[in-house]
């Protein structure tokens, strides 16, 4: 109990120190009120865990809250005007997280609606494509009543649930394979068909939307989840040529893809034009050196385009330096690794697959955007979970977290009760 509270107080303390270091105008008192509400939710939440005997993974939530606090401080630092919204979403997100954590009696219930999830995913994407507004070269946002929604974030949730339930049902078929093809045995077309259709559909729509980063995340999610369930290297082998083929087709079809790749190969050729984004990002990261310029001191916050969402990591790396950037990396690594640990311990197959899927999703998202801003991969704009500005992303990731910890808690409770029973036998 003491430990749990101290950890939260430390995290909140860091957030408040960060906020107080930033020069806030007098008009920012509303922001501070939201920060206070955030504080109360974090503290009450940890109290509630105690009262309701939460027994799941003790590390993930504090780590995510630390990431969240860091993200909030940096959103305030980069653009105080939009930070108020970010605080709202963070607070709503946390409430949703606790709602998911405590209200779901049995997560296996979700597995029943698999085709509904699939249809929902496709439908959400279609709606955006038809009615969405263009933003930064990608048609990915959708306005309802003045609030911009990013349906692709909710697609992640729907798709993950679909994948998990589908893979659980068809695991044996996919694993063993029924059609012999030379030395390899492949699953028959009936089993694979919905799967292939989903891939084609999602990738096609995303390519049309020009939201390449999300397409990449989904593709990795498909392939890695398939591998986790079937443990057949064959699938990884097949995925590579498909990936290269899709990539080549995309490269030939879309100009913006060609630009992305050429800028990635040589950003210094035109650092003020096409290469501006990545050059500014690298300047910011490099400007941080080992210990950073100090919070609020960096130049990147003003120079890097879309600093508040896609490039927020570059700003963090500048102001907190290599030390801070590594800390962020490690925090994300802890969350991803704990998700896999939950997957390994889960008592039923659906929980295992779902938890692994969440781990894969979080890991891939983080890797793709961070590799993008550090020029390890071509830049594809996707939000950094819990850090980048954006309500949809925050809400979805908190729901995912709720599902993950629900699985963890359920596992712990069931094993606890089994242990107790055994003890009764012994005595």
């Amino acid at each position: 109990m003491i430990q749990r509270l101290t950890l939260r107080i430390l995290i909140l303390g860091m957030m408040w120190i960060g906020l107080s270091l930033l020069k806030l105008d007098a008009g920012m008192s509303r922001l501070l009120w939201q920060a206070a509400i955030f504080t109360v939710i974090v503290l009450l939440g940890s109290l509630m865990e105690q009262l309701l005997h939460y027994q799941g993974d003790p590390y993930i939530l504090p780590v995510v809250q630390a990431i969240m606090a860091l993200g909030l401080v940096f959103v305030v630092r980069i653009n105080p005007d939009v930070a108020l919204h970010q605080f709202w979403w963070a607070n709503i997100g946390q409430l949703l997280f606790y709602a998911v954590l405590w209200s779901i009696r049995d997560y296996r219930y979700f597995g029943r609606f698999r085709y509904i999830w699939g249809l929902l995913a496709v439908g959400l994407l279609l709606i955006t494509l038809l009615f969405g507004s263009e933003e930064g070269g990608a048609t990915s946002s959708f306005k309802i009543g003045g609030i911009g929604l990013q349906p692709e974030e909710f697609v992640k949730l729907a798709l993950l649930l679909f994948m998990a339930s589908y893979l659980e049902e068809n695991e044996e078929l996919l694993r063993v394979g029924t059609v012999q093809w030379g030395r390899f045995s492949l699953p028959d077309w009936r089993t694979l068909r919905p799967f292939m259709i989903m891939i084609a559909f999602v990738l096609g729509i995303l390519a049309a939307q020009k939201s390449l980063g999300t397409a990449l995340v989904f593709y990795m999610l498909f392939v890695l989840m398939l591998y986790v369930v079937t443990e057949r290297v064959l699938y990884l082998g097949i995925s590579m040529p498909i990936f290269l083929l899709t990539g080549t087709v995309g490269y030939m079809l879309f100009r913006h893809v060609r630009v992305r790749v050429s800028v990635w190969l040589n950003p210094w050729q035109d650092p003020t034009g096409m290469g501006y984004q990545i050059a500014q990002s690298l300047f910011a990261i490099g400007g941080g050196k080992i210990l950073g310029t100090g919070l609020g001191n960096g130049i990147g916050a003003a120079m890097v385009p879309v600093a508040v969402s896609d490039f927020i990591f570059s700003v963090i790396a500048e102001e907190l330096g290599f030390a801070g950037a590594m800390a962020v990396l490690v925090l994300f690594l802890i969350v991803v690794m704990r998700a896999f640990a939950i997957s390994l311990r889960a008592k039923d197959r659906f929980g295992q697959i779902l938890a692994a899927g969440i781990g894969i999703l979080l890991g891939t998202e983080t890797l793709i955007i961070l590799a993008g801003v550090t020029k390890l991969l071509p830049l594809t704009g996707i939000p950094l979970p819990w850090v980048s500005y954006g309500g949809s992303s925050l809400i979805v990731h908190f729901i995912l977290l709720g599902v993950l910890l629900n699985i963890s808690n359920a596992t712990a409770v069931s094993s606890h009760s089994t242990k107790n029973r055994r003890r009764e036998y012994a005595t």
Partner: protein
Amino acid sequence: MRGVRQVALGMAFSFFILSLGLVYWQVVQADTLLENPSNRRLILMENRVTRGGIYDRNGEIIAQTQIQEGKKVRVYPKGEMFEPALGYSSVKLGASGLEGSLADWLLGIKNATPTQAVQQLFALPRQGDDVVLTLNSRLQSIAYNALKGKMGAVVALDPRTGEVLAMASQPSFNPTNLDKNWNEIISQEEKRPLGEKQRPLEHRYFSLFPPGSTMKVVTSAALLRSGINTTDLYQCQGSTIINGQVIREQNDKAHGWVNYNMALAESCNTYFATFGVQAGDQAFLSAVKGFGFGEKIPFELNVPMSSITQATKNPTSLNTNLLAASTFGQGEVLVSPFHMALMTAGIANHGVIMTPHLVERVLDPSQDVLYEQKPQPWLTALSKEEADKITSAMVTAVTEGTAAPGALPNVQVAGKTGSAEPGGNVLTHAWYIAFAPAEEPQIAVAVIVENGGTGGGNAAPIARQIIQEALNQKVGDKK
């Protein structure tokens, strides 16, 4: 559950690769990125600081940042006078001179006060440090006005402390609105024909010239150490032949019977060549080394090294012909006027050359002293006896020799002229070095006027005006 473990391992490995990427950009490539021309980080960082002011030793403003119509403007109330030593600093042109080399102080980065450190940490607008120079605006203005219209340089030092009192070079440029006028300055210079280039950006006090007869004060050290009797007489016949090389006097004038004092006063080439060769190349080379040839001069600005031969390093030996020419400052000898002033100051200060400096004090924004320069010896060029002998000869040069135009009423001035042949069919460079009062020197001066003719006629009067003003002011005792 092998699959989950493998994917987890793959993820961890990818994170590791990512951290290597961070190491690459934040450690390995950090400085390269910072220097990339499209990276405006350094300039923008600097914009947050109000540059400190630059003042002369009496507190007169030389450079100051003022807010004009909400914008920071660097103003230079003295105009061209302190250029190019003062330099400039602009987003467009970069930085040079003191504005560049003192940037650490002016921006409050070096030895930041706790307040400045906190302001730096939290990116608050902050004030840099003020720098008080050792320069004296009155002397600088005399030097500047005397040189105006000529090409040349003046350096004045306090021989007791190494403080630089004046440092002028002409032609130069006006630092006000330099961003706007820059292209005009450059294009005007480019339009001039080759022989008439004005080189307005050149720091002429650091440019290397043949020293001509001013070199004889240095050669004197070798002569005195070789044990010649300064009262012995030598007959100057207007020219002499050493090792097959004809050594001529200026205008082939025969000085008749001269002793050491008269030889220096009349600037007799054959005397110094004959006895210099007699003393030998080792005595000469050790004397010039003692005066700082081939040595890096410690100073706030970069001074090129003076040299005896075309190699920058001092040679280990000299052949007789080159030695004979070097004794009176021809041959391959090259000296900067700044170094010449230092050597003069060394003779004035009884043989000890003090480390030269331009910064007297640095004051933080609340005017507390952050840094204060203390006098420090640099080299011991001469013993006190040697220095006294050379001084007495230099006094003779002013009272009855070539340096007569440098004489002042009621004060004993020690001086030496030089008319250096730059090579080619052009007028000689007019050199003059002097210090005063001879018995208790307060100021040492070196003047060069490029292609100015004789040192006595064209350089000495400039030095005389400066010395007069300095002694009237009693430089050193601060007003």
